[in-house]
C-alpha cells in the first residue's frame, strides 16, 4: 500500500504510532479493523488521505471523502504527535481513532434572491424553507431558487419566522407558519405544501396577533403547535393562542376582507394570553423548546427561563453583553447557546450546579453574532451567523470552527439547519444561501 510505504519512508524521520480506525459509518466506509502503524506527524488531512487510501484499496471506484477524526472525544486539529502530547495520551498503546465524514458543506446551491435583506430563515420543516424579508414578505422556498408562496401582509420588515407544527409536516395539507414583524404584529399563515406553481402564490394571514407596542423581534412556537410566544422591543414576552383548528372560537374580532375581487379570506385577530414581564430591554430572542418552558434573551444582558404555568422566571443568567440570539439544544436539549453584541458564542449548561458561567465560548467571529442554532439531531453541532458576513459550523469537541461559509457579501442576519444536512442563511445581501451536503451523524 502506498500509505504504508510512505509510512515506512517517514519512519526514519518521525515516530510511529499504532492506530486502529473505527467508525459508526455504514459498510462502504468501513476500513479493516487491524491496527496499523502510521507516522505520528500526520494531521487531520493526512489521516483523511490514509483512510481514503484504505477504502480505495477495498473498493476500486472509491471517491475520496474528507473525514474528521475523534480521539477520546476530541477532534484532531493538530498533528497526532502534538495531540497526544497535549492530551497526555500514551503513544505506546494502540490508539483508537474514530472517524466520520467531515462536517463541511460540499455543495453551494444557487442563491435565492430576495427583494430586500433576508432577516429570518427557518428550516425546521424538511419540505420547505421559510424566510422573512425586510420588504415585509415572508417567503416559502421549496428548494434553492424555487419560491412557492409569498406571505403578504406585514407593513414592516419581517424580523422572525417559525413553523408552528413542524412535526406534522408530512401528513397535513395545510402548514401553519408564524411571522413577526417590526409593524408590531404577529401573523399566522396557512398554506398547502404540495401546490406547485410557476408563480409564487401570494397568501394572506389567517390571523393577526396584535398587542405588542413596539417592534416584535422574535417568535417561537410551542412544540405541540398550540401557542406561540414572541419577544419585542417593548421588553415583554407575549404568549398567544393559535387555535388553528377550531375556527374563530374565542376570537375578539372577525374581519372579512375582500381584496381585488379575489377569494375572500377570513382574517381574525387575537390578543395575547399572557405577558411575561421581567426584561428591562428589548427581548431579542425567544425559544420554546418544551411545553412548559420558554427561554428568552434580551438586550438587558440576561437570559431567562420562564415557567409558562406560573409566568415567573426560574433562571436568570447574566451575560454582560446585549444578546441577539438564543437557542436550546445539545446534550439532552439542555444547553443554552447565545450570541450577542460581541463576537463570542457562549454556551451555558443550566444543569451545572453552583455556577452560571459559560461552559464553552467560541470566538472566531469578528463582529456581532446575529444567529446561532443547534443541530436538531446532533448534540455537538452548532451553526452561527455573524455581522462579519460569515456562517460558521461548530463542534463542541473542538474550539475551532469546523467550516466557515463566507459566501455572503454583507452581514448575515440569520442562519439555520435544513434537512439535517444543509445550512441555510440569509443576510444583508438579500440572498438566501443554502450550503448542502453536510453530513452530521
Amino acid at each position, binding site marked *: 500500500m502506498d500509505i504504508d510505504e510512505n509510512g515506512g519512508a517517514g519512519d526514519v524521520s518521525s515516530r510511529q504510532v499504532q492506530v486502529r480506525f473505527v467508525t459508526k459509518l455504514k459498510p462502504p466506509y468501513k476500513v479493516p479493523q487491524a491496527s496499523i502503524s502510521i507516522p505520528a506527524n500526520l494531521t487531520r488531512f493526512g489521516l483523511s488521505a490514509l483512510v481514503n487510501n484504505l477504502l480505495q484499496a477495498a473498493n476500486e471506484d472509491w471517491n475520496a471523502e474528507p473525514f474528521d477524526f475523534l480521539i477520546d472525544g476530541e477532534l484532531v486539529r493538530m498533528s497526532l504527535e502534538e495531540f497526544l502530547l497535549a492530551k497526555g495520551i500514551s503513544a505506546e498503546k494502540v490508539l483508537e481513532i474514530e472517524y466520520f465524514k467531515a462536517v463541511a458543506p460540499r455543495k453551494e446551491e444557487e442563491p435565492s434572491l430576495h427583494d430586500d435583506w433576508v432577516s429570518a430563515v427557518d428550516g425546521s420543516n424538511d419540505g420547505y424553507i421559510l424566510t422573512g424579508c425586510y420588504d415585509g414578505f415572508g417567503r416559502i422556498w421549496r428548494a434553492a431558487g424555487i419560491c412557492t408562496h409569498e406571505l403578504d401582509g406585514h407593513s414592516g420588515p419581517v424580523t422572525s419566522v417559525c413553523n408552528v407544527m413542524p412535526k406534522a409536516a408530512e401528513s397535513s395539507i395545510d402548514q401553519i407558519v408564524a411571522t413577526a414583524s417590526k409593524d408590531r404584529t404577529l401573523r399566522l399563515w396557512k398554506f398547502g405544501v404540495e401546490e406547485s406553481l410557476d408563480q409564487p402564490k401570494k397568501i394572506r394571514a389567517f390571523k393577526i396577533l396584535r398587542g405588542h407596542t*413596539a417592534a416584535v423581534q422574535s417568535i417561537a412556537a410551542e412544540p405541540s403547535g398550540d401557542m406561540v410566544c414572541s419577544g419585542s422591543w417593548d421588553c415583554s414576552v407575549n404568549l398567544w393562542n393559535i387555535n388553528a383548528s377550531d375556527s374563530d372560537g374565542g376570537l375578539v374580532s372577525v374581519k372579512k376582507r375582500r381584496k381585488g375581487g379575489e377569494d375572500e379570506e377570513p382574517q381574525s385577530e387575537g390578543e395575547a394570553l399572557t405577558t411575561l414581564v421581567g426584561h428591562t430591554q428589548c427581548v431579542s430572542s425567544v425559544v420554546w423548546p418544551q411545553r412548559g418552558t420558554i427561554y428568552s434573551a434580551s438586550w438587558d444582558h440576561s437570559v431567562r427561563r420562564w415557567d409558562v404555568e406560573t409566568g415567573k422566571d426560574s433562571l436568570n443568567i447574566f451575560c454582560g453583553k446585549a444578546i441577539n440570539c438564543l437557542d436550546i439544544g445539545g446534550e439532552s436539549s439542555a444547553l443554552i447557546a447565545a450570541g450577542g453584541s*460581541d463576537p463570542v458564542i457562549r454556551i451555558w449548561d443550566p444543569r451545572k450546579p453552583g455556577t452560571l458561567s459559560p461552559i464553552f465560548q467560541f470566538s472566531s467571529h469578528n463582529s456581532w453574532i446575529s444567529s446561532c442554532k443547534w443541530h436538531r439531531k446532533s448534540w455537538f453541532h452548532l451553526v452561527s451567523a455573524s455581522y462579519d458576513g460569515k456562517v460558521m459550523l461548530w463542534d463542541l469537541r473542538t474550539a475551532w470552527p469546523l467550516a466557515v461559509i463566507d459566501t455572503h457579501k454583507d452581514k448575515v*442576519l440569520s442562519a439555520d439547519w435544513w434537512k439535517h444536512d444543509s445550512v441555510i442563511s440569509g443576510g444583508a445581501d438579500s440572498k438566501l444561501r443554502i450550503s448542502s451536503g453536510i453530513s452530521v451523524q
Partner: protein
Amino acid sequence: MGTNPRKENDSDKPKNETGKKKVQKLKAKNMEETLKRIEEAEAAADSSKIHRSFRVPTIVMMKYGSLSEDGGSVSESGSDQSKLSEDEDVVQSSDGDNPTGACDEDNDHSSGDGVIEADDGDNYHGEDSHGESDDSREVVEESDSSEDEVAPRNTVGNVPLEWYKDEEHIGYDLAGKKIKKKERQSKLDSFLASVDDSKNWRKIYDEYNDEEVELTKDETKLIGRLLKGKAPHADFDPYAPYVDWFKWDGAKHPISNAPEPKKTFHSFKVLRYVRAIRKGLIKFDDKPKEESRLYALWDDSSSAERQGLAYIPAPKPKLPGVLAIRSQFINIDPESLKPKLPSRKDLKPYPTTCYLEYKGHKGPVMTISTEPTGQWIASGSKDGTVRIWEVETGRCLRIWDLGENIDQVAWNPLPELPMLAVAAGHDVFILNTRCGSDEQQKKIEELLHVEPQMATEDSGQYDWGQDDRHGGIRLKHFKTVTKVEWHRKGDYLSTLMPSDILFRAMNALIGSVCSIRESRSVLIHQLSKRLTQRIPFKTKGIPVSTAFHPTRSIFFTATKKDVRVYDLLKQKLIKKLEAGVREISSIAIHPGGDNAIVGSRDGKLCWFDMDLSSRPYRVLRCHPKDITGVAYHRSYPLFASCSDDCTTYVFHGMVYSDLNQNPLIVPLEILRGHSRVMDCKFHPRQPWLFTAGADSLIKLYCH
C-alpha cells in the same frame, strides 16, 4: 643665657686640681662675653618683674664681681640670687632631711673644699660693701656658681649609683682618676659623733661625691624662707615703691593699657582687606600654578625635585546636584503620588470596539441623535440628508433630502412621540419619523398639522408652515440655525442662531435701532401651540450651544467664554460658569442635573460641579484639537468627548449622591477609526457610543 654659665662652670671646675690657671684665663674671656649679654638681658629683665625674679638668679651671679661698681640694689639682689642658687643646689643634692627651723649659729665650714667654704663664708656682706674684685674672688664666685652643678669631682654622669656599689671607687675625676670611696665610719661612731656634734643637723651626705656637706646658717635661713613661700633673700622687698618710668607730660589722653577689643580689630582688618581686594591690591591666585606636565625624564637636576610617582589627586567628590537633593529630601515613590484611580477593568462596561458601521451618507456626518428607546438613531450630514438607522442591524430606514447643510438633529425625548427636529440652513424641520405605532402616528400627525391661516396669523418672522414634501413642520428662521434642542417634555424646543449677533452688530454699525432683536439668537418654540418666543433675558457674547436642564426648568446657554444658567420660571440668571478656555464649542448636562461638561476649541474638557463652584472641577486636556462634541450617558457613569483629532475619549464620570464626595473621573478608552469625529452620542440604554465622522460613516462602539 643659661648656657654660658655652664661653660664657665665646666671650665671652672678644676680648682683644686691641675690646670687652674688655664681655666681662669678661659674664664676671663668668657666673662667679657657674658657681660655684654647680661647687660642686654638686664634691660629685658627690667621690663617685667616676673622675668626679673626668675631669671636674675642665674644671670646676676656672674655679674657679681664685675658689676659691683654699679652698686646699689642690683648688685645686692644679684648676691641674693647667687645665694639662692647655691642653696637650691644644695637642696637638690641633699637628702631633704635638712633643717627647717631657723638656725641661730653662724656657719663655720668644717669640711669640704676650701673654696666653697670660703665663698660661703661670712664675707658676703663684705664683698657687697667692698665691691672689690680680684682673682681670688673671681674664683670664689666661680666656685660658687660651679657648685650649682654639684659634680666638681665625679664625672660618671647621671648613672645609677648602684653600679658602683660593689666597687672601691665611686667614679672618676676630670683627670680620669678613680675617686676612692671614703672609709665609712661605723654606725655607732657616727651616731655618737652626731650626738656630740651640735652642728650635725646641718650636715648632709652627698652620695654622689661621697662627701658630707655642712650648710651654713644663711643657707638654712634661706631654705626656711623658701619653704615658707617667701622671697629667698631676706633683703628683697616685694613691696618696693613703684617707679613710674613713663613720661606723662604731653600726653593729652590717658593711654589705655587694655588690649584692643577683638571686635574692632576684626571689623577693621576685614574692612581693610575688603577695600584692598576691591582695589585689586590683594589678588587671589586661586589657580595652582601650572607646571609643565612634560619634563625631561632623564634630567638629573629635575629628578632631584621629583622623586617617586607624580602626585595624582584623588577625584573630587561630586557636588550635590538637583537629583541628589531630590533624592535626599523627596524620597517618595512618584507612583504613590498619583491619585488612586480604580482600575479600568473594574469600571466595565464601557465602549471599546467598533462592531457596526452605518454606511450611506455621501458627506460628512455632522450630527447624530439617539431615539430614547435605543432602537433607532438619526443622523444629519452635509450632503443635505437626514437618515434614520436601525441600531441593531445598521439598516437605513428613512431618508429625507432637505437639500441644506444639516447642523443638528434631535429626537423628541418622549418615546411615544418619535419626532425629529432638524436644523437645516435657515429652517428648522420637525419631521414625523413614522417609527411609532398607529395611534402615535395619528397623534404626531395632529401635532404636525399646521393650518395655513394659523401660519399667517403667527408673527411674521417665525413662520410655522406645513411641509408636505417631508411630512412635517417647517419653521423658517431668518438666519442659519445651528442648534436645536428639545425640552424634556417634548413640547418645547430651543433653536440657536449665532449669526443673529453678527447681524445685530452689523445693524449697530449702520446705526439702526436694534434693541428689539437683542436676544433673538436663542428662540424657544412651543410645538403644541405653535408659539415662538425669545428667551426672556439678555445674553452676552455669541451663544454657541444651548441645553435644557434634565429635570428642572433651567436653561443653559454656552457662549464662547462662559456658560450662563437661567431659571426659566423666575426668568433670571442663576449662575455663570467660567470655563477659562479659549472658545467653548459644546456642552452636555449630566442626567442628574448638577454637573456639566463643556468642550472647547482648544481641546480642553471642563467638568463643572455646579454645586461646588462656578469654576471647573476638573479640566481634562486630552485633545490636541477642537472638541466637537461632548456627551453624557443617560444611565451608565460614562461621558465622552470627540474631537477633530480623529479620536473619541471615553471617561468614567461617577457622580455620587453623597454631596461630600466629589465626582470621580477616570479616563477609560480612546476610540479611533474616523478621519474627524463630528459628533458623539451614547446609546440611551447600552454602554455603547455612536460617533459620526467626517468620513461619512457612523460607527457604533460596543463594550
